[in-house]
C-alpha cells in the first residue's frame, strides 16, 4: 500500500512526460544525465537514490498492479497517472524523504547505531562474547573508536545514550509504525531483531512497504539530529551526507570548466562525446544553481524557453524547439534546469 502510493506520487510528479522506467532509475539513483536532469526538472530530489537495492522484478510487479488497478496508463514511452490514481493520493500524508543528500547512506548510520545498541546491551547483560549484527570492518572500527572514547562500561553512558535515543524517537513527525519498525529491528542481549519479512507480516504489509517506511523513519530522524540536540548520535552521522553530489566524471568536467576550457575542448581532452559533456553541464547546473551558464545560452533565451514551457504546460523538448528552432536541445534542457532553480 505504502510503496504503491509512493510510486503514484512520483509518477504524478513526472507529469506524464517520462517512460515507465524513469521512476525506477530515480529510486535506484542512476547517475545518468537524464535521471539527474529530471531530478531538477520535476523537483524529485527527495526520492533520488532512495533505495539503490530495489530489484527490477519487484518494481515491475508493482507497476503491473498499478496498471491493472487502473491507477496509471502507460505505453512504450510514457507513463501517467489517471483520475482514479490521483484519487489514491490526494488525501494521503506526504512522505518525508531526503534522498538527494543521503543516497542510501542512512544505512551506515543505522549500522553504527545497531552495533552500538547491541554492544551496550550485551555488556549490560554481562555477555561480552557475541556475534556482531554488522559484518563490515569499517562499521566495527567506527563503533570501537566511538565506544572507547565514551567510557561505555559505565552505566551512566548506557542510560545517557538510551535517553537520547528515546527522545529522538519521540519526534512527532514519526508515526507509531516508524518507531516500532526502528526499535524491533534492533538486537541485544538475548533479544534478537526481526527480519523485514517478520516486521512486514506483523503489520500485514509488503516487505517493500516496510523497507520504505523504515528508510523514511531514518530520514526523519537524521533530519532532526543536530550536534546541540544529540551530541552522541550526531557523531554517528559522520560522512553519510553526500558532500559533492556530482558523479566523478562530471566532477572532472567541472574542474576543467573552472580552468576555462570549452565543451569541445573538454570532450577532446577526455576522449568523450560532446553529448556526454553536455550531460555533465546539466548535472553541474542541477547541483549548483550559481554555476554561470551565459557561455551556453543568454538570459533572454532562458526566459523565452521558460515562457513557452509555462504557456504550453510542458517540458517536452520537441514542442519547445518547434517554437524556438534556433536553440539546440542542449540549450533548452539547460534553460529548463535553470528555470527550476529560479522557481524552485
Amino acid at each position, binding site marked *: 500500500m505504502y510503496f504503491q502510493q509512493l510510486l503514484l506520487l512520483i509518477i504524478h510528479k513526472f507529469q506524464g512526460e517520462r517512460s515507465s522506467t524513469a521512476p525506477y532509475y530515480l529510486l535506484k539513483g542512476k547517475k545518468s544525465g537524464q535521471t539527474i536532469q529530471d531530478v531538477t526538472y520535476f523537483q524529485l530530489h527527495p526520492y533520488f537514490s532512495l533505495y539503490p537495492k530495489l530489484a527490477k522484478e519487484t518494481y515491475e510487479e508493482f507497476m503491473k498492479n498499478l496498471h491493472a488497478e487502473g491507477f496509471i496508463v502507460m505505453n512504450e514511452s510514457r507513463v501517467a497517472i489517471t483520475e482514479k490514481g490521483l484519487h489514491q493520493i490526494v488525501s494521503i500524508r506526504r512522505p518525508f524523504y531526503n534522498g538527494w543528500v543521503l543516497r542510501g547512506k542512512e544505512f551506515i548510520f543505522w549500522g553504527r547505531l545497531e552495533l552500538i545498541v547491541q554492544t551496550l546491551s550485551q555488556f549490560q547483560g554481562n555477555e561480552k562474547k557475541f556475534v556482531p*549484527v554488522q*559484518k563490515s570492518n569499517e562499521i566495527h572500527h567506527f563503533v570501537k573508536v566511538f565506544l572507547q572514547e565514551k567510557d561505555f562500561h559505565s552505566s551512566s553512558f548506557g542510560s545517557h545514550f538510551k535517553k537520547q535515543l528515546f527522545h529522538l*524517537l519521540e519526534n512527532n513527525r514519526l508515526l507509531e509504525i516508524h518507531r*516500532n519498525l526502528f526499535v524491533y529491528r534492533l538486537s541485544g542481549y538475548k533479544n534478537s*531483531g526481526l*527480519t523485514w519479512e517478520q516486521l512486514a507480516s506483523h503489520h500485514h504489509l509488503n516487505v517493500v512497504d516496510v523497507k520504505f517506511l523504515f528508510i523514511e523513519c531514518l530520514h526523519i530522524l537524521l533530519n532532526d539530529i543536530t550536534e546541540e540536540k544529540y551530541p552522541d548520535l550526531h557523531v554517528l552521522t559522520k560522512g553519510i551526507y553526500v558532500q559533492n553530489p556530482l558523479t566523478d566524471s562530471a566532477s572532472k568536467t567541472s574542474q576543467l570548466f573552472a580552468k576555462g576550457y570549452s565543451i569541445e575542448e573538454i570532450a577532446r581532452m577526455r576522449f568523450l562525446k560532446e553529448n556526454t559533456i553536455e550531460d555533465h553541464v546539466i548535472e553541474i547546473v542541477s547541483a549548483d544553481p550559481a554555476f554561470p551558464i551565459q557561455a551556453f545560452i543568454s538570459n533572454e533565451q532562458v526566459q523565452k524557453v521558460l515562457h513557452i514551457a509555462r504557456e504550453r504546460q510542458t517540458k517536452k523538448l520537441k514542442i519547445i524547439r518547434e517554437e524556438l528552432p534556433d536553440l539546440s536541445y542542449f540549450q533548452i534542457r539547460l534553460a529548463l534546469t535553470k528555470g527550476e532553480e529560479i522557481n524552485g
Partner: protein
Amino acid sequence: MDKLTEVLKYKFGYDSFREGQKEIIEQVIAGQDVVAILPTGMGKSLLYQLPGYLMEGSIVIVSPLLSLMQDQVEQLKILGEKRVVAINSFLSFEQKEKVFRNLSSYKFIFTSPEMLQNDRFNHALSAIRIAYIVADEAHCISQWGFDFRPDYLRIAKWLQQFRQTNVLALTATATSKVVEDIKTTLLMREPFEYIHSLDRPAIAYEAVEVKDAKEKLAWIIGRVTSTNGPGILYTQSRKKTEMYAHELQKRGIRVAYYHAKMEQDDRILVQQQFQQGQLEWICATNAFGMGIHKDNIRQIIHDHIPTSIASYMQEVGRAARDGAQSIASLLFTATDVEQAFYVAMQDFPEEADIRLAYESNDISLQLPETTTRILDYWKEELKEQETIQLFQTIKQKKWAEILSLYTMLQNEVCIREQLLHYFDEELTNRPKYCCSKCSLPLQEILVERKQRSEQKEEMNWKIKLDELLLS
C-alpha cells in the same frame, strides 16, 4: 596442569580436550605434517588455533570457502584475538597493500586459494616467519571430493616455496582416496594421520519413503508440530524454504526460512534468532549451517536425496553437538534420484561446454561462474579430449554415488553401517538408537512438543527499548 591444557583453559575457556585434539596439537607443535579428519562439530578450529599460542611466527590458513573464512575470523575475534586478518577478494587494493606491509603483526592470516597467485602477497609472506600452514576443508583439493576447487590445486605449486614449513590438513569427510590426494598435493612427508571415526552415535538415522511431494509436506507438518526442535529442515530450492516456513508458521511453529538470496542483515538476524531460541525451526537450503554454533539441535530433516554423501554427513552433523540424543530424517520418493542428479549436474560442464572452452578465450559470459572456474583450470593442464574424458568419469562417479545413497536408503541394511562403509570405516559400537532399519522407537527419542499459547503481541517500542537497554 600441563601447558596445553593451561592454554586451552586460559585462551578458549575449556577444561579439557575432546577426543583426538591433544594428540594432533602435540604433533603440530613437534613440527610434523598432519592430516586430521574429524567429523563436523568436533572442534576442528581449535587444532590450528591453539598451537599458534605456543609457537613463534604467524599461521597461514588457506580456506576455500569465503563465508567459512569470515566466520572463522569472527570466532577468533570473539575469543579476543585481535591479530587476525582475512586476505581475499573482498579487500580493496589499498586495503591489501596495507595488510601486506604489516603482515608480521598478524598471528592468524586467513587467505583464499585465489590469493596464492598474488605476487605481492607471496613476497610479503616470504619476509615473515610462518609457524605452519593450514589447509582447511582439504577435501576440496581432491577432484573426488564433493566440492572440488580447482584453484585449490594451485596450492601444490605455491607450497614449493615453503618446503621447510609444516602443513596441517583439516577436513570433516574424506574417503581414503581423497586422503591420498591430499597428501600428494600438499607435498606431505610421512604425515601424522589422525582419522576420527565419522560416526556420531548420538544421531539416529531415519529413512522414510513417501509417494509424492504432498505426502512429504504432510509428514513434515506432522513431525514438526508434534515433536520438539530445535531443528533444521533442508530443502533444495529457495521457493521451497519459503513454502515450508509458511506452512509451518500457519500451524503455530516459530520458524523462518533461510537462503543465500536474502539480504545479509536478515540472514544474520535469522541465525541469531535460531541461536537464541526465538525460533524452533529453520527451513533452509544448504547455504545454512556454516557459522551456526548451536549445541542443542535435535532434529535434521531432508526432504530430498542430497547430491553427495559427504555433504549429507556435514549437514546431519550439525545436530547433537552437546552429545544428547538427536535424529536425522530423510524423506524421499522414487523420482528423487533423478532430481538429485539433476541438481548435482547443474554447474557441470557438458561436452559442448568443454569444446567451447578450448576454442574461445573468454567463456565467462556463456557459462556459470563455477563451471568457468573449473574449465579455466583444466584448460591449462589437459588436452581437450582428456578433459572431456575426465568429466565423463566424474559424471559417472557422481551418478554412482547418488545411486548408492538411494540404495542405502531403500535396502534392508543398517544406514549407519553403510554411511561409514562409504568412508572405508567399520561400525564397531552400535548405539542403542541406531537407525530405522535396525530399531528406532521414535517415542523414546523424540520429545513431545508443547504448544505454547502464543498470542501475537502488539508491538510496543518503549517496552522493547527497555528490554534492550537499562535506564
